[in-house]
């Protein structure tokens, strides 16, 4: 979806506030961060589904709220959608049902922090595109989760690196299935994206899945 999160190249946000060097501004943000990670470790949703939940924040609210408010919105949505809590429990704060899931203990959490969740999968298909090949990003306007930023749709670029096959984010967000797709790093020249408004001598590299691309 091309919601308010799809920010590349948008105007009007003003200068960068470099005084904001901290990871968390408020203590509640730390809690939201910790709750999101520890609940995520129960396996009821994956990373792409959590991103999609945040993206579904009302666009007006998304742009007028802080980063961890997006996370809070996403967490509440996922907890209710997966049935981990009911909407009544969410609004009352009082537990009225039991769940078979049990919290991730510190040992499990420690293991997951340091092992991570690699997304690379064994290559079962041959890559369609090769190094230095000219490609174009397909047009499209899916309402579902995707990792194509709007600003490169329809733009031509060059394959600069092959990353192997990874879990295809779009499908992962929809069905939860780990479908392998080739992932490429594509180089786009600034002027191919921004035309005459591009800054000189600049380019953008974006990691894009094979279904996003077409040969030219």
């Amino acid at each position, binding site marked *: 979806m091309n919601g308010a*999160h*799809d*920010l*590349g190249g948008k*105007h009007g*946000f003003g*200068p*960068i506030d*470099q*005084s*904001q060097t*901290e*990871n968390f*501004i*408020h*203590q*509640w943000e*730390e*809690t939201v961060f*910790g*709750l999101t*990670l*520890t*609940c995520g470790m*129960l396996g009821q949703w994956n990373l792409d589904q959590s*991103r999609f939940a*945040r993206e579904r924040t009302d666009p007006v609210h998304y742009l*007028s709220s*802080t*980063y961890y408010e997006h996370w*809070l919105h996403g967490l509440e949505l996922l907890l209710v959608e997966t049935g*981990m*809590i009911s909407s009544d*429990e*969410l609004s009352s704060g009082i537990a009225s049902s039991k769940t078979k899931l*049990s*919290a991730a*203990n510190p040992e499990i*959490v420690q293991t997951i*922090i340091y*092992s*991570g*969740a690699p*997304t690379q999968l064994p290559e079962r298909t041959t890559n369609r595109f090769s190094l230095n090949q000219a490609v174009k990003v397909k047009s499209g306007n899916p309402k579902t989760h995707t*990792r194509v*930023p709007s600003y490169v749709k329809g733009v031509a670029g060059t394959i600069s*690196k092959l*990353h192997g096959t*990874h879990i295809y984010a779009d499908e992962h967000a929809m069905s939860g299935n780990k479908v392998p797709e080739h*992932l490429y790093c594509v180089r786009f020249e600034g002027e191919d994206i*921004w035309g005459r408004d591009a*800054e000189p*001598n*600049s*380019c*953008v*590299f974006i*990691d*894009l*899945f094979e279904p996003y691309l077409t040969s030219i």
Partner: protein
Amino acid sequence: MTEDNGHKHHHAPPSEIEERVKKLESLLVDKKLVDPLSLDLLIDTYQNRVGPRNGAAVVAHAWTNVDYRKRLLQDATPAIMEMGYAGRQGEHMVCVENTPEIHNMVVCTLCSCYPWPVLGLPPTWYKASSYRSRAVSEPRAVLKEFGTDLNPDVEVRVWDSTAEIRYLVLPMQPAGTENYTEEQLASLVTRDTMIGVTQVTLN
């Protein structure tokens, strides 16, 4: 950290959000979906244990060891793991090298992807709309705001980390530091130099 710590932010959330978060936290603990010790562990890990000192150690090691530098630039994930750094949001790492001809900077326009094991969690400005929107369309203007004024001959490469590959910038080693120890070099390397918005200096 307190509410009134002097930071400027345009959208100060109302205290009702604190209550909303407290209510959710106690509900999840009551339902045994969250272990409070795990919550503390996660916050402590990313507030106090994992941060840009890790990345600085990687950079300093690359500056002082030609073979390591080569390994880091060829296949960053195992090279970073050699230094003991791995895990969430660093599963697939790529290291990009600044040179007199090329300057690299990293952004995530769609969310705020960031290489946690080497840099910790991202600063607020990295997650804010102005950096995410402008880094790709006017990187030189953004760099200038950070005090990085590049010669027009220098190619600016922006890495928009949209998939699960995470990027670490290997900054240029400043002149005059040839005899520094690895520890001394690491102390010069800041978070912003590894995001690529600034360059390493002796000051």
